């Protein structure tokens, strides 16, 4: 819960205002331009957000290029051990891992560009492959959270009554459990046995396990505010209008209400990605997240902390990368929120 929350909740963007979705551009002062186009325009003007967003994209691309680096520059794989190997850097020969178990720092050459870890593995290669894993988990978890939160918010907020009661209490239950404890408990439990759905099983070492856990844990974070919005939206006139025209429940939920909460969902997405990446790092640090042999920024930091006084690079490099990635997406997410909230304009002039 609290400790690992990253960016603030989106507040209540005025994109909620009914009629916004109907393109009431008279309020916005420009004729015939849709709200999302306007938001995009505002976003484009926000140079800081764009810069940080670009940084995030650069990091993603770098990580996607992991195999290129591994095969053509470092000539190794993320799990190949080179413990007793020696390398020659600028004429001097040195051990990849010293007899006392201290790995070499960055060599700034093709092999072991960013140094080696305790098992003699190439840090740069692991950083990129680990980044792929961390980002993959972040995106999958976000997708899971968004999907379920939206469905639950719509169903609970629209139908109310018993359905809402059950769903809301379940959300409360998951939320009352401190996020980290729930994550560790599930992570530990599932890492050993994996998940068995009868039709198919997910092995305990798969990346899907931490992704699912993080996704599930954050569903209430999104579902509760969305449900609140759905609750108030359903009382609005346009819903009644639609019903009087003969629209069924499902149609109302997905054609009328969903578009109105869409901007909130969009604002949530970057936040959730940031949250997910951070929670994955925390869980992996505690041993309940990504399992060996898969690298991730979290496992690299966890391994590196053991050797801080003598091999700082093992902590600083994945740590720095993680902070930059999360920062990038947080600032960008902030920009998205400002862009979708028309009152932001008023604010800046003030």
């Amino acid at each position: 819960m609290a400790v690992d929350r990253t960016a603030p909740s989106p507040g209540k963007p005025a994109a909620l205002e009914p009629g916004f979705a109907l393109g009431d551009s008279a309020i916005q002062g420009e004729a015939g331009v849709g709200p999302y186009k306007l938001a995009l325009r505002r976003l484009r003007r926000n140079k800081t957000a764009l810069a940080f967003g670009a940084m995030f994209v650069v990091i993603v691309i770098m990580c996607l290029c992991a195999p290129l680096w591994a095969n053509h520059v470092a000539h190794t794989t993320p799990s190949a051990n080179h413990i007793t190997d020696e390398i020659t850097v600028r004429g001097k020969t040195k051990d990849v891992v010293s007899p006392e178990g201290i790995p070499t720092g960055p060599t700034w050459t093709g092999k072991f560009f960013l140094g080696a870890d305790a098992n003699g593995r190439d840090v740069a290669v692991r950083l990129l492959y680990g980044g792929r894993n961390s980002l993959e988990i972040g995106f999958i978890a976000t997708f899971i959270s968004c999907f379920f939160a939206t469905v639950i918010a719509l169903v609970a907020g629209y139908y109310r009554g018993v359905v809402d009661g059950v769903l809301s209490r379940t959300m409360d239950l998951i939320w009352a459990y401190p996020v980290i404890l729930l994550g560790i408990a599930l992570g530990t439990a599932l890492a050993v046995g994996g998940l068995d759905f009868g039709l198919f099983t997910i092995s305990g070492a798969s990346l899907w396990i931490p992704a699912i856990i993080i996704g599930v844990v954050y569903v209430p974070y999104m579902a509760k505010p969305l449900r609140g919005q759905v609750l108030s939206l359903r009382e609005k006139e346009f819903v009644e209008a639609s019903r009087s025209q003969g629209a069924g429940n499902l149609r109302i939920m997905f054609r009328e209400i969903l578009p109105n909460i869409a901007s909130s969902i969009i604002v949530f997405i970057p936040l959730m990605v940031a949250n997910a990446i951070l929670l994955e790092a925390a869980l992996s640090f505690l041993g309940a997240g990504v399992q060996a042999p898969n690298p991730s920024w979290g496992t690299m930091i966890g391994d590196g902390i053991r050797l801080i006084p003598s091999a700082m690079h093992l902590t600083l490099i994945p740590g720095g990368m993680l902070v930059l990635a999360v920062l990038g997406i947080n600032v960008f997410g902030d920009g998205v929120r400002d862009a979708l909230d028309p009152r932001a304009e008023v604010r800046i002039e003030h």
Partner: protein
Amino acid sequence: MRKLVQVLVLGVAAAVAALGLAACGGGDDGGGGSEGGTAKVVIGTAPDYLDPQEEYTTQGAEADWISYTPLVTYKHENAPAGNDVIPGLATDLPQISQDGLTYTLTLRKGLVFSDGTPIKASDAACTFERMIKVNWGGKSFFTDNVEGATEFDEDKSDDISGVTTDDNTGQITIKLVKPYGAFTNVLAFPEMGLVPCGTPEHTLTTDLPPSSGPYMITDIVPNKSYSVVKNPKWAGLNVPGIPVGHLDRIDVTIESNTQTAAQQVLNNQADNFDAGDTVPPSLVSQVRSQASDRFEPVTIPSTFYFFMNVNEPPFDNELARQAVNTAIDRPALQRLASGFLEPECFFIPEGLAGHPDGECPYGPADGHGDIEKAKQMVEQSGTAGQPVTVWGEQRSPRTEYVEYYTDLLNKIGYKATPKIISDTTYFPTIGNAKTQPLQTGFADWIQDFPNPVDFYLLLTTSSIQPVNNENFGNVSDPMIDSTVAKLEPTPTPDLDSVADQWQALDEYVAEKAYVTVYGSEQVPKFFSDRIDFDSAVVHPTYLNDWSTWQLK
């Protein structure tokens, strides 16, 4: 005349000076250290228990060994002398009948517990019964061998029929069901340290029984701290061979951050870094250079190996197993242990009778392994490309050992993936026949007592069980079984007479490549500069012997 007086005076002065020097130099309480004082120990892992009949780790043993003395015990000395059994609370080593089935001991006269109650022969019987009732992890050493012990364990009788005591004569007689040469060592376990009859038969955490050794355990705050203080009654008992102790008090704090613990000892803020902990790799070079006169790695008789299941492919194939032994780079594993590992290839560790001193069959122990040759062997065996699951524990450096091993298996032609699980569930998991797949993984064994039967119970057919198996590789070889059965009744003090037979067996096991041994562990002997380094004993089985410590 004046000159004569001068010479005489000088002569007398010189004589007095010489006498004085002689008096100061020799004839002291050995070692030249001082008596009394307090020491502070930092331990990284809390003892599993402090209850004398329950504990089964070195952390627990360190406190219990010097507080509860068994009928027989070990010499309080470094290896190899520390492996010798001496009388404890008994007058002498046990008298063993010709058929090896009856052990007779006599309790010393005039012994009392720390609260003044006299120690009686029947207390020994009560101690054995308590050890069984509280379910000590090693109780099978006793119940498998002593008549009536299994029935007592199963609640079918009120006492152990094979144990008879006489409080008047102090005699204790134990009958075995089969001749077990290491039984004297079993009697020397700290878990056989005597406690009074009437001690509750459930785990005690803060209220321990009165002590029967040089020290007693007090001020227990579970998982945080405890202390041992001198048992005031002990010195008067004059038990030979067991030190009365120099320090008055030893305060133990649990400091799970070994970095902090090592730093404290380095800065002389604490006196001892527990031998059961690992010096964090980042501090090793600093410790070696800054504290060279108070730090030393000590090899303990232990075997670290990778088990290979002979009932499952690919390791049901002998050539495949030999390939692993050919490829392994033991110095690499040594580096992962920050240097605290002695590369070895034989199952019986160094320091134990029967340890082969010949060449390793698949490459020198300190060699870097031959990957190319191993690859060919794997090809030849027809097992190349098979998926292999490698089991491992979570804590460092064990998880690193397994990650190295997995990569090695991949290099020689397998498709290996590691499966790292929590330390708590590790041995129950790999010891469970239902665990699938169970092909290979981390294993270790630290000697319980200095007799190869202790290690070979890991390789005999009779020890295979569906739950809590210790023969993880399911090794079942009639040659091993028959040799062990033949050598098992040899009493420990007579081991040297059969050492060459143990050696031959061990060389056979290495050739068949039933396991891949890579080394023996080294523990840190690391003190502050307050404690006299040379006289402090690191016992081969119980590690730090606090009763030998003294301030400089």
